[in-house]
């Protein structure tokens, strides 16, 4: 009954181990389906946050803007696994990697859903308390899911899988955050943006 994404969310190790075995569907459609679903989720949530409804006026153009996030994630994945000898086609790897994205997707849906459903008086609490606590939990659990991806899909050792997660995240977060938030794309500029953001939350 449950989707692959849900099973990976709850039991990442055993699910990814079984999915790494043949048959291995591949191809452009397989590679694009989950990144495009993620883009659709992002565009829908941008519309909900801005207008409280799903509108073509906002969701349509936002598809073209927010496709940059899965694109960056896929590029970062390629940077990490490009030299690996494996029977897993890269198009299938993209699909499996994005199947492990459910924790982030669920967090975004919950936060934006709450924002769309409750009066603004509660937003600050949602963004700081619910958002921060949820993000901390998702960062940890999704790191474990990604660890399982590199460990069981690519057969990496524990140490190598940890390095892979760190490398993939460093590239993804640096690029996504730089494009989303940082006027100065330098380590000092990024550090300043993050410290400013934390200060705003603690204000």
């Amino acid at each position, binding site marked *: 009954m449950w989707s*692959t994404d849900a099973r990976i969310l709850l039991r990442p190790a055993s699910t990814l181990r079984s999915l790494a075995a043949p048959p291995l569907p591949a191809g452009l459609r397989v590679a694009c389906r*989950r990144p495009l679903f993620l883009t659709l989720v992002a565009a829908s949530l941008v519309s909900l946050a801005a207008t409280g409804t799903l509108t*073509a006026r906002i969701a349509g153009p936002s598809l073209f803007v927010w496709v940059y996030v899965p694109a960056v994630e896929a590029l970062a994945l390629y940077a990490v696994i490009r030299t690996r000898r494996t029977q897993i086609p890269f198009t299938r790897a993209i699909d499996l990697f994005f199947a492990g994205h459910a924790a982030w997707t669920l967090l975004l849906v919950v936060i934006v859903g709450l924002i769309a459903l409750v*009066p603004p008086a509660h937003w600050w609490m949602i963004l700081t308390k619910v958002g921060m606590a949820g993000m901390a939990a998702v960062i940890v659990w999704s790191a474990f899911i990604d660890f399982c991806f590199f460990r069981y899909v690519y057969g990496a050792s524990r140490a190598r899988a940890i390095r892979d997660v760190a490398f993939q995240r460093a590239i993804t977060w640096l690029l996504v955050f730089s494009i989303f938030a940082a006027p100065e794309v330098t380590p000092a500029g990024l550090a300043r943006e993050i410290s400013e953001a934390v200060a705003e939350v603690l204000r």
Partner: protein
Amino acid sequence: MTRAGRLAAGLLFAAALLTGSATDGRRSSASLVLGGYHVLAADFHVHMFPLGWSTLSPWDTVIEARHQGLDVIAMVPHNLVWPGKVGRWFSSLISGPIVITGEEITAPDYHLLAVGVDEAISSRLPIIGAIEAVHGQGGVAIAAHPYENSWATFNTALGELDATEVVRPEAQNTPRMAAQLREFYTRARSAARPITAVGDSDYHGTGPMGYSRTYVFAREKTVKGVLDALRDGRTVVYDRDLVFGDPRMIQLAAAAGGLPNQTPEWPTPGAARAFSRLATLVLLIGVLFLNRWD
């Protein structure tokens, strides 16, 4: 998820999109002339994607401003100017609202809105130097969210600031924050050079732009007219039953039966809108957890 399930999900998405788009009505602009002044609804603190912690692109930001009945917005990225220029260009293409380019100078000890500048101003300048740089480009300097933690810096520039945010969305819902904004405004008004009242939404793509807004009494419907009005203090800002700004303009507005001062409703009202948002949320979670893709 079976083929029938996918079809149902597709139809639900289409229904959510259609009802959401059909009920996405435009708020009317104030479009008033009182005492020879054009009364313009403005939001001087609007961020955009990219590089600005916002979700909407410059063009969507401009369209959203028009949808919220705003006649004027200042697009003020953090420590940058160019994304606002994109918005200004797009607005000129669609005869949209007046877009004033600017920057939120984001320094460790203060945030200052430089409204009406075309070149980025360094955030490493001390507050007085930053205000001088804003004035040097013909812009207006507005204290951004002047809460207690930034008073030590802003207090050194009371005679130099042109305007201050006295109403903001989070403060409209938090008495402690509202009290701090009002206390700073009252103190700044008694400085050698009186300060202009501004209401801003500090828009980052969440909720209605112009949730807190400023009514500007401009001699002409141009960037210059708006900046002159800000320098001369000709604004009115509402916070539900409270009103701030130029007493003469407040009187003009009252004599005309008041300005549209109601705070936008959120969650956006109506059964169709409620259906659109609930259907979208249910659908996204449903597809995530039930669709097997293969």
